[in-house]
């Protein structure tokens, strides 16, 4: 079988994958990307490069992805519908593939009112489901959104999407995931899991519909570094569900960093036992060095990838 990317290969071989997030800097400094990549390189299979996440201006995800490619690290380029219309999206998709990007994660994007340019105009010409369909049509059928043919090489991209298991209405949340699957996504990364009970309810619904057989599900884990971060995640970030008991542990802790790490390790150990989950996606912005510890101590072995601890 021809694999589109390393991530595609790992997931196809039913190896439990690790992916991790690398946030591009608020500057043109390529060394920051390279440094983060080097810290994490041996502990994950592919790395999400965020696209102006939370609507804050940073180095473009396409450029940062290319920097990783140049350093033999595999990126998952995130691409949102907030800042580009279908013309710019398709143009970046072609460009990304031409530069050696092999994984793409299609998102609608955080609303610009949350970011550092709240006066800006959002685009939202298409939504994430339509974007998935656009990439799939470009890759598999060699056509643009308007039906025109791609003149030569088609963009070979392994397609991902995001999903939130913690929406109030599980049935509808799963319906929407099913739409993403029908649109053509190959894998999904979930919103950070803190509420394991709710996550299990969602996974049960996924499995009862057989969706875990159709795509690869990668569960999100975000190590909480401080009380401030726990507070922000619980009360300010839309769609994050931190149960009160976990929140209280962070609040009471004298060493929040240690407590946050412990919580992430517990969550990792619980998640890796859930049938149907195919990997973990770590998001530890500005705390990247915690990821190797989590990977080692949760015994998420990398034996199949020739990496020794």
């Amino acid at each position, binding site marked *: 079988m021809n694999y589109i990317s390393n991530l595609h290969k790992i997931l196809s071989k039913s190896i439990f994958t690790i992916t991790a997030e690398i946030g591009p800097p608020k500057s043109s400094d390529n060394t920051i990307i390279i440094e983060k990549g080097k810290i994490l390189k041996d502990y994950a299979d592919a790395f999400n490069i965020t696209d102006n996440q939370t609507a804050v201006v940073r180095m473009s995800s396409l450029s940062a992805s290319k920097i990783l490619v140049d350093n033999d690290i595999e990126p998952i380029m995130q691409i949102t519908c907030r800042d580009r219309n*279908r013309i710019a999206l398709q143009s970046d998709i072609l460009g990304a593939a031409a530069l050696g990007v092999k994984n793409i994660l299609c998102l609608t994007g955080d609303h610009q009112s949350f970011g550092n340019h709240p006066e800006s105009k959002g685009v*939202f*010409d298409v*939504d994430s*489901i339509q974007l998935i369909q656009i990439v799939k049509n470009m890759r598999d059928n060699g056509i643009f959104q308007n039906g025109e043919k791609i003149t030569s090489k088609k963009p070979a991209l392994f397609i991902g999407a995001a999903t939130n298991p913690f929406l*109030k209405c599980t049935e509808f949340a799963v319906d*929407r995931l*099913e739409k993403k699957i029908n649109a053509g996504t190959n894998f999904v990364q979930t*919103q950070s899991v803190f509420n394991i009970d709710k996550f299990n309810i969602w996974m049960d619904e996924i499995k009862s519909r057989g969706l875990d057989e159709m795509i690869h599900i990668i569960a999100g884990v975000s190590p909480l570094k401080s009380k401030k971060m726990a507070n922000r995640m619980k009360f300010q970030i*839309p769609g994050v569900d931190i149960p009160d008991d976990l929140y209280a542990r962070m609040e009471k802790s004298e060493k929040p960093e240690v407590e946050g790490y412990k919580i992430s390790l517990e969550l990792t150990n619980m998640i890796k036992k859930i049938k149907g989950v195919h990997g973990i996606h770590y998001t530890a912005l500005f705390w990247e060095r915690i990821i190797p510890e989590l990977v080692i101590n949760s015994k998420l072995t990398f034996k199949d990838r020739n990496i020794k601890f």
Partner: protein
Amino acid sequence: MIITKSKNINNIINQINQESVFIIGCSECATICKTGGENEISKLEKLLTKQGINVIGSVILEPACHKLNDKRILNKYKKELKDIKQIITLSCGNGAQTISEIFEDKEVISGTDTIFLGQIKHINEFEKKCNLCGNCIIDKYDGLCPITRCPKNMLNGPCGGSIEGKCEIDNNMDCIWHLIYKKLKKKNRLKELREINEPFDWSNSKTWRIKI
């Protein structure tokens, strides 16, 4: 109904560089929004007089966006308008530009901000229902418009920020997808929501200038 909001009085005063001005209101939307009716004109007149600005006259057009009708009414104010260089319009942007077209030699100062096309929910409470996309699809969603009422124009269900039925942008605002889901569920039409809606045809929205 075109919904307008009064501009801060200082914004208006800062634009005035003449001794005398003329005020134009509108009998329709701006009157109902309480931004361009009789009361608002007289309130503005008092405030300007206090600042030493002479209001030479005023009129309420019926409505201000009706160019032919405006010309007919304004004919009666030829004397007052003759030497006036600045006109303050208390109407929506359509009205203000109609006045601007009629008086090419005069400067129009808009006394309002035009916000959206909305419903009058209660007195002084308005809600945006239509964004004039030119391609109505509300029949698909049992009379609810996600293009207008979802800040991300989502056509295939809610985003991850739909929390307890409320929108992440403003928790006073219902997530339109939550409402669509509830309504279609009641009518046993949920199956329709599983179909993927293709990218929207925005070409009818004619955001560029157009005549029909």
